[in-house]
């Protein structure tokens, strides 16, 4: 069984539903019609664009092109992490902490999975590499953004407690230990919940896609389990690195709390 191709009319009808929702929002003054419209437009344009990019990439499946697209995805995800911080680090650190952590975790886990587990020929075959990396980046991005945001806003709110511990001779690490632990936990909650709900409450998107494309359900399930484990470890390691780097950056070499290295975002 192949994929049933969608006609343009199918998409127009689906779009009409969104327009109906926008119209209701406008009539009832929810004020959400404009963001809804922009988001719908963005999703259309971005997906058409990535469709063309992937088509071109599949026809020129060289390591260089795959690496370039991966890098671009990483940089955009890094920007997204920054945008979600209430208190971001100043200077290059604001962008660097999240992006570096995502690079370490997502890229390492993707390369590992491609070479040791899935083993397409060649290992960077874009049909496997790009979607896999995309799923990992999207999820580690969430974990890292949540973890970092919790770390910096807790440090901001609990500055007096942290400094009070420093005055009592605590090391910087011990002074922020509980906040660091809490930030790690917050970063990992979404993926833990997703794993717990998978298959019972929600059918994960990738598995659904494979089934729609005609794959036998049990094959799709095996892939989905693999992906869940990869996402969980990628998110975990990424959040670990980000929270560790961030908490180091909150103190200087004299173990002083340096909130001047944070900038409140409006």
């Amino acid at each position, binding site marked *: 069984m192949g994929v049933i191709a969608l006609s343009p009319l199918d998409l127009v009808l689906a779009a009409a539903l969104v327009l109906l929702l926008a119209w209701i929002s406008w009539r009832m003054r929810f004020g959400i019609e404009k963001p809804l419209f922009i988001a719908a437009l963005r999703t259309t344009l971005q997906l058409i664009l990535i469709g063309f990019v992937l088509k071109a990439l599949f026809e020129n499946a060289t390591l260089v092109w795959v690496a370039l697209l991966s890098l671009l995805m990483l940089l955009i995800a890094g920007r997204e992490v920054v945008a979600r911080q209430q208190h971001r680090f100043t200077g290059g650190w604001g962008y660097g902490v999240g992006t570096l952590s995502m690079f370490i975790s997502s890229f390492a886990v993707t390369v590992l999975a491609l070479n040791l587990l899935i083993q397409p020929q060649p290992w960077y075959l874009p049909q496997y590499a790009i979607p896999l990396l995309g799923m990992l980046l999207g999820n580690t991005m969430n974990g890292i953004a949540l973890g970092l945001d919790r770390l910096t806003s807790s440090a901001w709110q609990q500055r007096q*407690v942290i400094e*009070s511990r420093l*005055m009592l*001779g*605590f090391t910087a690490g011990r002074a922020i230990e509980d906040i660091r632990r809490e930030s790690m936990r917050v970063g990992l909650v979404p993926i833990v919940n997703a794993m717990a709900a998978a298959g019972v409450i929600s059918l994960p998107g990738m598995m659904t896609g494979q089934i729609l494309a005609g794959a036998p359900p049990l094959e799709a399930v095996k892939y989905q389990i693999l992906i869940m484990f990869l996402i969980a470890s990628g998110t975990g390691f990424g959040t670990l690195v980000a929270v560790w780097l961030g908490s180091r950056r909150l103190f200087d070499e*004299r173990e*002083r709390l340096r909130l001047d290295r944070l900038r409140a975002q409006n």
Partner: protein
Amino acid sequence: MASGLTIKQLKTLHLGPIDLQVAPGECLVISGPSGSGKTLLLRAIADLDAHEGEVLLNGVASSAMRAHEWRLRVGLLTAESQWWSERIGDHFQQANDAVLTQLGFGPEVMGWEVARCSTGERQRLALARLLQNSPKVLLLDEPTASLDSENVARVEALIAQWQREQGVVVLWVSHDQAQAERMATRHMRIVSGSLQERV
């Protein structure tokens, strides 16, 4: 080699340059209008704020040791105490019962809930918590601000005893003229960031 606390050309954005020598067992009371930099001075000595110049304890510079080791020796007590756990005892490693008794507490205080303690009780307990480290220098930022006269006397007696018996260096920020006369072996005023001797 100078013993006690030595401050050489200490300078921050709002302070100094300050030079100071306080001998073991001495109590230097520092007064001055609010906003004149008393708290900032104590924070700089504890190395909690970036500063130029050197602070030495018995001839050893703060920069010669890890910052947390310095702060174990040079303890800062803030005017408002901070507590992060539910019970008082969670904030103590090994409580010194003699200190607690002198401050008017029995050993059962370790089981008390922080939320049910008064500001004054917390202030005295914060002093006991700091003294666990057996600091060589005590930087006290209005340590009796929210205490009644009986408890002020307790705190003063305890600090005086540590000065006498352990040779602790005390820098005491206070607005209270009578207290300054009771405690000070020396008295200085801080005016727009610099120290002036008072006679």
